[in-house]
């Protein structure tokens, strides 16, 4: 079977699952629903794997395979900025290349595991079928996002995952907080999409196409022909516009606010969407647009700085969160910051590498936390946990692996990818020592709060509610097996990219090379560092992580957890961190409430001022006794009622002269004649 030409089926299988579950799922038994849902993804995974294997067999320079299904739309002629004519036409096409192959494997692979996990986790829920339908729809969107051959195909997925995220966050729709979070997620994302769509449009008017490969070629050609130059404002504009989109979807500053709230959704959703796949879409998109970002070093600097700051910012909030999922959520934001840091310093492959490893261990951690929550009967507050180690051993062990991985302990996946990023932040020409330093600090904080999570949850004395205490049980196989597989992945996936200084080949980077081929731009020479120096830097970052772990060990393992001591230890910073730097409040005050005010204000304006002459003339029908208050009304009801009022005033004298007295009539006539005479004799000249 030629899987390469069948890649369009990969997103389609989940659609079938979605349709079946969505339309008739209500009448199917839960097991069948689960099998359909997970099976659809499994088939996608098989097709993905087949396609990737076949792709790998091609020579490196031919590893780009486009399948055009049909022309999606053709909106007619357009003038590009260069004055050429182009047609705004978009294909319904799919592109398999090394980058998208990584993405589809991650998405379908981890997606499948999470589907399996969900069959267990969601088993008690109403609307089981609905959940799987949404999940499958999400898989479709996500696969379209990463497989699409052009920016608009990506945009389909981009918006589609947004919709699914909305639906899944709002899955417990009877909870107001869930509904609010869902809406917040969508609307904040829409702000990003605003930028993204502007970026896409700019790409079209600049290059006359939005196909990834064609745009890439156009950039290269333009560069060769001298029609484009590095740091061209156009490229900076496009890059920044795209990055605005990325900050929305990938929860970066300043648009990260939706992600922590998104934890209102069921835990598998958090794992799939808000950790492993959807939130990395921004990373994917920036990586995909590397040729544009390379042309705009200033924009890359912005990306790097935003990434680093987000990493630090989110990590600091994560230090004090007590909701197990919120800790993970901020951790995700922070890790995404890492990825953007990598992209920003030009280490696209490193960013994608971290994306992949992060997908494994973060999905693992979320699912593990789900397992904990499942065991704890939907208790998410870590302050009410503790000493769960022996009660749910599999969960504990797998989560421990995940924690070690994210902390960057050598030998696990996180170490390889994180170290790669830190090294590139230091050594790449676009890098800077401050960026590196931020990264290292974040690494330490990450290690600290993750181990805080681990210790608070599994160690120490039990703070569990008594009613819950004796119900605690290990999760069913359908949940633990995915955990174990992911734990394995969290270890193994790192070995795809063993760096050179460890004697590896950095296979992952090589695999992605065709996509991230640097543009022929003259830039500062890469300062060569010895492998020993690189190893030393790595050791340093590991030391910092270990320090973080030790700190956590001291605070949360050695001493039993007490809220007051924790609060006290942060001093004045605690409320700030606990309240997430008051950003939500700030946004509410600055934007949300202002928009609502504007809405109310304009509405009143509309009703009172803009509203038409009709209103005025309608009010005429009531001429009676409202003479006294009509001034009032005249002013309140504003401009257009003014016309009505004017008519009313005009009708007043008519009333005065229409007295019914014959002689008054005659008088008016005579006056009329006199006025005309006056006009004709003197006025006319």
């Amino acid at each position, binding site marked *: 079977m030629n899987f390469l030409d069948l890649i369009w089926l990969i997103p389609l299988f989940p659609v079938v699952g979605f349709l079946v579950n969505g339309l008739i799922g209500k009448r199917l038994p839960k097991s069948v629903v689960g099998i359909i849902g997970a099976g659809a993804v499994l088939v996608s995974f098989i097709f993905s794997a087949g396609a990737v294997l076949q792709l790998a067999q091609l020579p490196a320079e031919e590893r780009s395979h486009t399948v055009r299904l049909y022309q999606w739309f053709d909106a007619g002629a357009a003038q590009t900025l260069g004055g050429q004519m182009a047609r705004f036409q978009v294909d319904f096409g799919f592109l398999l290349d090394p980058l998208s192959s990584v993405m589809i494997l991650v998405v379908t692979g981890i997606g499948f595991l999470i589907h399996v996990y969900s069959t267990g986790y969601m088993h008690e829920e109403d609307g089981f079928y609905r959940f799987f339908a949404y999940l499958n729809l999400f898989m479709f969107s996500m696969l379209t996002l990463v497989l699409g051959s052009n920016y608009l195909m990506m945009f389909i997925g981009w918006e589609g995952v947004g919709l699914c995220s909305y639906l899944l966050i709002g899955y417990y729709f009877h909870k107001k907080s869930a509904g609010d979070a869902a809406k917040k997620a969508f609307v904040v994302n*829409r702000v990003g999409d605003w930028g993204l769509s502007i970026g896409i449009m700019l790409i079209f008017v600049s290059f006359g196409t939005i196909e990834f490969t064609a745009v890439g070629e156009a950039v290269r050609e333009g560069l060769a022909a001298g029609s484009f130059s590095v740091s061209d404002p156009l490229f900076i504009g496009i890059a920044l516009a795209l990055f605005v989109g990325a900050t929305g979807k990938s929860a970066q500053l300043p648009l990260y606010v939706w992600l922590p709230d998104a934890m209102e959704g069921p835990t598998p959703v958090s794992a799939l969407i808000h950790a492993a796949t959807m939130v990395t879409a921004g990373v994917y998109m920036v990586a995909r647009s590397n040729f544009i970002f390379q042309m705009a070093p200033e924009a890359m600097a912005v990306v790097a700085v935003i990434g680093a700051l987000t990493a630090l910012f989110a990590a600091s909030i994560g230090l004090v969160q007590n909701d197990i999922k919120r800790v993970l959520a901020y951790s995700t934001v922070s890790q995404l910051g890492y990825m953007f840091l990598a992209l920003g310093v030009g280490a696209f492959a490193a960013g994608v590498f971290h994306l992949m490893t992060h997908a494994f261990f973060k999905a693992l951690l979320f699912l593990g936390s789900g397992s904990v929550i499942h065991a704890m009967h939907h208790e998410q507050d870590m302050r009410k946990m503790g000493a769960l180690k022996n009660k749910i051993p599999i969960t504990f062990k797998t989560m421990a692996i995940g924690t070690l991985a994210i902390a960057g302990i050598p030998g696990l996946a996180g170490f390889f990818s994180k170290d790669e990023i830190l090294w590139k932040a230091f050594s790449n020409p676009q890098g800077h020592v401050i960026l590196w330093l931020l990264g290292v600090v974040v690494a330490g904080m990450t290690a600290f709060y993750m181990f805080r999570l681990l210790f608070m949850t599994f160690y120490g004395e039990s703070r569990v509610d008594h009613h819950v205490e004796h119900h605690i049980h290990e999760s069913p196989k359908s949940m633990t097996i995915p955990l174990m597989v992911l734990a394995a992945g969290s270890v193994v996936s790192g070995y795809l990219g063993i760096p050179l200084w460890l004697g590896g080949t950095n296979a992952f980077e090589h695999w992605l090379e065709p996509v991230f081929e640097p543009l022929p731009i003259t830039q500062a020479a890469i300062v060569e560092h010895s492998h020993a120096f690189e190893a030393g830097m790595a050791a340093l970052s590991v030391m910092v992580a270990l320090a973080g772990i030790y700190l956590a060990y001291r605070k949360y393992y050695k001493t039993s957890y007490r809220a007051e001591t924790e609060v006290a230890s942060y001093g004045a910073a605690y409320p700030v961190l606990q309240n997430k730097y008051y950003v939500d409040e700030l946004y509410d005050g600055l934007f949300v409430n202002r928009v609502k005010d504007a809405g109310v204000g304009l509405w009143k304006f509309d009703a009172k001022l803009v509203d038409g002459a009709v209103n005025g003339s309608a009010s005429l029908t009531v001429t009676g006794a409202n003479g006294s208050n009509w001034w009032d009304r005249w002013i309140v009801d504003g401009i257009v009622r003014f016309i009505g009022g004017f008519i009313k005033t005009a009708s007043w004298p008519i009333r005065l002269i229409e007295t019914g007295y014959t002689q008054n009539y005659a008088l008016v006539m005579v006056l009329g004649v006199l006025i005309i005479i006056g006009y004709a004799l003197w006025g006319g000249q």
Partner: protein
Amino acid sequence: MDFFRQHILTIVAFWPVAGVIVLVFLNKENKTLIRWWANFVAFAGFVISLPIWFWFDFENSDQMQFIQKVPWIQNLGVEYHVGIDGISLLLVMLTTLLGPLALLSSWDAIDNRLKEYYAFLLMLQTGMIGVFISLDFFLFYVFWEVMLVPMYFLIGVWGGSRKLYAAIKFFLYTLFGSVLLLLGILALYFAYPGMAAQQPSLAAEFGTAHTFNVLAFQAMGSFLPAGLQWWIFLAFFVGFAIKVPMFPFHTWLPDAHVEAPTAGSVILAGVLLKMGTYGFLRFSLPMLPEGTKAFIPLMITLSIVGIVYGALVAMMQPDMKKLVAYSSVSHMGFVTLGMFALNPNGLNGSIIQQINHGISTGALFLIVGMIYERRHTREISQFGGISHVMPVFAVVFLIMTMSSIGLPLLNGFIGEFTILMGALQANLWYAIAAGSGIVLGAAYMLWLYQRTMFGTLDNPANQKLLDMNFREIVTVAPLIIMAFWIGLYPAPFFKAVEKPVNKIVLKVRPDFFQGAPQLNAGQPAVPAQGDAR
């Protein structure tokens, strides 16, 4: 068959009136018969309009087709002259599609004075189709005004609590605009003979006598003095802008929508508003290219203000229907924005968006109508958690919400994105400013959805609501199908409008396609995708 084919436009347009004539003689008490007959007439109207789509020559979509031309008032040079090109094709089909759905939606909702109700709806149908097929300005104006009366009655008799106010407001507002439009038409009419005397090409094709021929006026557009064009554009602007409605002429719309019965709202939003934009497209742009250019800044500004304004006001509405009504203001802002970006992308998108708006807003009004029928209130605060009791309804509502906020693979996206693309080609800031409408659009629609569908079902009155019945599903199903069709495969629609649009663009900006050969064909030679790149 040949007769049918030659007269298809006339037949489609007047078929509903023929149905009304029969309807008048039905027994007033026999409500079932009246309902069946009216629905049959409307549905048959749709069926007999289908051949238009299939017989339409898409290759020559910029040529008027199915032309019928009969002298009417010879003293004035008025003709019964109908024909359609790609643009009118879409709008005619939209009208014949929405008509039966609107009728079907009133099956249970309307129970008093049925006969008149259906008669007015069907007469409205004729008026609307007539507007879109007229190629004679006089004829156009007649249809344009004719449909005011049935709409007035639909709002005034079967409307809500402030129906009389809303009805007369609708009527007066529109009438104010259209009488000025009439003056503009007259100015063109009297300018024509003089122009024809000077321009042999004009005289050769359309003669030198007074005429109302739209095509002649379009041809004249290139020669008309700019000053005159400016004034005529102003007159047209008021007429069409009120109908669209563009900010600040929009205040009739919320009232009319809120008070109108569901079917009225559907028709109003779905078709009537399009008459304004169609007017701009068919008349203002090609007939008054210089005037158009002079007004572009104003039109763009008003469009963008409309987009943002409509969205902001919509957000805070406590009444669902009013919310959707204000969203129309915002959506129609997109339509006019694309139109006055004056490039093929913008115009194409603008036309597609007109269709989209008809579909999604029409459906949203149907949806609001369904819930109103059940609860007799449209206060958003009265609802919450409806998903629990009306799952199918929730899904339909969701799809249409998504269509309205422009989710890709649904219709709204295609239109909005293309419009923004066109706007961006005109000026980056237009696109950025208008893009805010997308964010706000998501905000108000999702907020609405959240407040009504999500949450706990705490209002006891909502606990026994019935889900959509078969008739209601049948009513919205075509719209859902259309939404997906346009979202997934809009090619036929774009194909229908592209050539006429290019013609319009060439008219206003003759140098637009320069640099590309075959300028005269009206079809720019642009390398197909993949050839050049």
